[in-house]
């Protein structure tokens, strides 16, 4: 399974192994980790929640979008949910392609899409309280009920 929502610590090598192929000349990995400081605010720990079946489907959709845009790409994405400590790995994206430029571009595309369409939420526990994090400005509206123009792949 190349697209996973997991409750246990992520093993990066497993994602890499899933995308290694005889056609591949490049593998890029993106590893998202839990950061301690955001501006002056100190995060103690995080909790991620997901709408698991839909989140898995949306990760798979991102993989299909990548395969349609970049020829011969292979993709694996794991996102961890539950309680995470500072420095823990929250997400890993592995992409392989025949040539390096595509592997970098496709990997960047995957993380940006995760932040648009995958139903996963982060709760930050600060020193002085806790908060569910929406988009960074907390101002985003979805008047049509859907993400704007970003869920068009069928």
């Amino acid at each position, binding site marked *: 399974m190349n697209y996973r929502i997991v409750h246990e610590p992520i093993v990066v090598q497993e994602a890499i192994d899933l995308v290694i192929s005889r056609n591949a000349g490049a593998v890029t990995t993106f590893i998202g980790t839990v950061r301690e400081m955001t501006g002056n605010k100190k995060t103690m720990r995080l909790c991620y929640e997901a*709408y698991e079946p839909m989140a898995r489907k949306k990760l798979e959709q991102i993989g299909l979008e990548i395969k349609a845009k970049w020829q011969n790409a292979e993709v694996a994405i794991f996102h961890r949910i539950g309680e995470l400590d500072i420095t823990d790995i929250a997400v890993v994206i592995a992409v392989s392609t025949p040539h390096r430029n595509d592997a970098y571009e496709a990997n960047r595309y995957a993380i940006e899409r995760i932040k648009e369409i995958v139903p996963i939420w982060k709760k930050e526990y600060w020193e002085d309280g806790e908060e569910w994090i929406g988009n960074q400005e907390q101002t985003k509206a979805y008047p049509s009920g859907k993400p704007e123009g970003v869920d068009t792949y069928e």
Partner: protein
Amino acid sequence: MNKLLFFAGLKDIVNADQLELDMVGKTVKEVKAELAQQYSDLPLESVMTAINEEFAFDDDLIEENDVIAFIPPVSGG
């Protein structure tokens, strides 16, 4: 009958992660309006909706047994 799912901050406002309500024949927009009456704190303007695990439009119609999920701005990654 329909299952309505709430996530992240919405769960805290509704005080439940799911509700069983009959919304058959209503549009997503009408469902939201009904919820807004009962839970005036729900920030529904910034909430996306999914029917059976796919994003839905405000004018999509709810059918029998549809699962309706309310999805606040996502923050994974």
